C-alpha cells in the first residue's frame, strides 16, 4: 500500500499561499519518515509560473491547468481531486483549514468515504500510525486522534501550524488532463474582492488587535501603521466589529477567525474567553491594557499596564527605528 502524501496547493490572487509551503514542508518531513513520495497538487489556470516555486519542496507535482479551474468551486475541484486521488491512491491528503479548505475537503471526504480531521495543528507518524493534534472546545482541550478502517485520510491544518523549510529537490512535473464540467445548479454572479490586497488575517505572522479600549474607528489608523511596519494585519474584537468600527473579516475569536501568528499584540482588549479562544495558540502574546486585572494578562507572555494612547505612538516609533536599522 502506498504511503504517498498529497499536499493541496492553494493559490490566492495568482500566487501560492504561504500556508501551502508550510504544508509542503511538513509533508516532506513525513514522506521522508515513511520512505514515500510527496506530491504537490496544483489545480488552476495558467499556473506555469508557480511550478518552479514548488519544485524544491516536493518530489512530484501534479498539475491540472485548465480555465475551468481558474476560480475555486467545490464542484470542479472535488471532481479533479477525486480523479487524482483515485489514480495515485495517496495515504494522506493535507490541506489548509482556510475558507477554501473548509469548503472543499468535507465534500471530498464524503465523496471518497474517507475520514477527515479538520482544523488540526500538528501531526506525527510513528510505526505507521498517524497521530493528529487538534484543539477542541475553543482550545480548552487538545485531542489526539488517529484514523482507522481506511486506506486514505484527509487532514486540514490551521495556517501557521508549521514552519517553512525549503528543500533541495527538483520535483518532476506531471501534467494531468481530465474531463471537468461545472455543476449547472450553481452560478457565480459576482465576486467582490473587498480586502484582497491585505495579508490574510489567518496567515499573518503579526497581528495587532484593537478592542473597545481603542475608543473609536479613527484610532485604528495607528494600528494600521504598526501592522504595515511589521508586514502584518490589524485584527479586532467583537465589541469593535459590533460597533462597526471595523469589518467582520477582521474579527478574532470564537465567532470570528482563529489565528495563530508569531506575534499577537492586543490593545484595549479585555481578553474575554470568546476572544482568547481565537488567539491563544499565537506563539507570543503581548497585551496593552490600563487595567492590571484585565483577563488578557492571563494569556499574555508580556504585558504593559498603561494607557494605550501613550504606548502606541512610542511603539510605532520604536518599531520604525528597528526596521530602519535592519
Amino acid at each position: 500500500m502506498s504511503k504517498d502524501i498529497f499536499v493541496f496547493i492553494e493559490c490566492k490572487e495568482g500566487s501560492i499561499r504561504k500556508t501551502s509551503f508550510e504544508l509542503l514542508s511538513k509533508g516532506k518531513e513525513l514522506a521522508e519518515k515513511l520512505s514515500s513520495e510527496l506530491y504537490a497538487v496544483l489545480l488552476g489556470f495558467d499556473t506555469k509560473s508557480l511550478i518552479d516555486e514548488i519544485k524544491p519542496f516536493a518530489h512530484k507535482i501534479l498539475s491540472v491547468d485548465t480555465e475551468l479551474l481558474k476560480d475555486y468551486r467545490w464542484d470542479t475541484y472535488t471532481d479533479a481531486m477525486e480523479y487524482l486521488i483515485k489514480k495515485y491512491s495517496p495515504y494522506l491528503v493535507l490541506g489548509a483549514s482556510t475558507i477554501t479548505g473548509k469548503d472543499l475537503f468535507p465534500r471530498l471526504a464524503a465523496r471518497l468515504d474517507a475520514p477527515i480531521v479538520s482544523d488540526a495543528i500538528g501531526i506525527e507518524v510513528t510505526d505507521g500510525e498517524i497521530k493528529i493534534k487538534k484543539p477542541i472546545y475553543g482550545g480548552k482541550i487538545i485531542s489526539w486522534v488517529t484514523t482507522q478502517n481506511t486506506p486514505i485520510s484527509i487532514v486540514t491544518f490551521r495556517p501557521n501550524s508549521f514552519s517553512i523549510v525549503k528543500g533541495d529537490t527538483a520535483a518532476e512535473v506531471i501534467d494531468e488532463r481530465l474531463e471537468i464540467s461545472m455543476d449547472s445548479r450553481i452560478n457565480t454572479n459576482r465576486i467582490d474582492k473587498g480586502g484582497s490586497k491585505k495579508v490574510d488575517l489567518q496567515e499573518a505572522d503579526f497581528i495587532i488587535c484593537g478592542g473597545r479600549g481603542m475608543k473609536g474607528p479613527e484610532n485604528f489608523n495607528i494600528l494600521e501603521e504598526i501592522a504595515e511596519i511589521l508586514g502584518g494585519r490589524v485584527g479586532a474584537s467583537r465589541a469593535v466589529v459590533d460597533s462597526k468600527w471595523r469589518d467582520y473579516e477582521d474579527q478574532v475569536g470564537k465567532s470570528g477567525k482563529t489565528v495563530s501568528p508569531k506575534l499577537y499584540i492586543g490593545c484595549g482588549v479585555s481578553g474575554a474567553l470568546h476572544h482568547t479562544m481565537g488567539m491563544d495558540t499565537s506563539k507570543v502574546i503581548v497585551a496593552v491594557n490600563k487595567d492590571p486585572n484585565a483577563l488578557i494578562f492571563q494569556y499574555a507572555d508580556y504585558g504593559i499596564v498603561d494607557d494605550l494612547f501613550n504606548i502606541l505612538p512610542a511603539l510605532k516609533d520604536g518599531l520604525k527605528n528597528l526596521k530602519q536599522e535592519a
Partner: protein
Amino acid sequence: MNILVFIKQVADTEARILIKGDNRSLEIENKYNLNFFDEFAVEEAIRFKGKVKDSKISVCTYGGKKAVEALRTAIAMGADQAYLIDNTDLDTDDPLITAKILAGFAKKEGFDLILCGRQAIDDENGNIGAMVAEFLKIPHVTAITKLDVVDEKKIIVENDIEGGKETKEVQLPALLTTQKGINEPRVPLITGVMKAMKANIPVIDPVTLGLAKESLDRNASKIKILSYETPKGRPPVKIIDGETPEEKVKKLIKLLREEAKVL
C-alpha cells in the same frame, strides 16, 4: 416547501470541561446550548418561511436524549416540527457517520432547502454541511451571509470567500451553512416557549434510516480519539515596568527581539 434545519446541542463556552482519569473521555459541566452558528440557521429558516408560502420548518438533531432541549429552543423560536435521532450507545467521533445519518433522515423526510450552522463549537469541524450535501448529491454553499429568494426553484446567496464575498445563484434543493452576520437570531417569546414545552418530538432510531447498525458504531468509525490533554499553559505574564511609555516600549521591543525572538 420543506425546510430542514440540522442543529446540534453543544457545551456552553463557559462550561467547565475536565479530562477523566483514562485520558480518553471528558467530563462536561451540565451547561448546554443550541450551537452558536445553528441559531442563525434556525432564524434564517423562519425568515425564509416568511417569504415563501406553504413552507414548513423541521429541525432535527442526532444526539442524546438531552438534545431535545436544543430542539425545543428551535421550536420556541418558530420551527414547526422537531425530530430527535437517538444516538444512545452509538456515540461516534466520525463526522462521516453523522452526515450519513442526517442525509438518510433528509431522504426520508423530503426537503427543498437544508440549513446547517457553519461549524459546531465543540468539535470545531465544519464538516457536516458539505458532507450531507455530497451524500444527497445536491449543491452546497458554506458560510453564507445573505439569502434571497428568487422563486420556489432558485435562491441567491452571498458567502465569504478568500479575500472577499461572492454572490451565487443556486437551484433548489440545496444545502447552506450559516455564518455570523446573516441575521440577528430572535429571542423566543413566552408563547413560543409554551408551544415548545408542549411539542411532541418523535424519537427516531437511526437504524430506520437505511443504515445498518454495525455501520454506525465506534468500530465502524474511521476516526478514533487516542487521548485528550490540557493545553500547555503559558508561563505567568511578564509585566513590563518603566517610568515612561517610551521606556516600557523599549524594554518590550528588546524582549521581543532577544528573548522571544519574534522581531
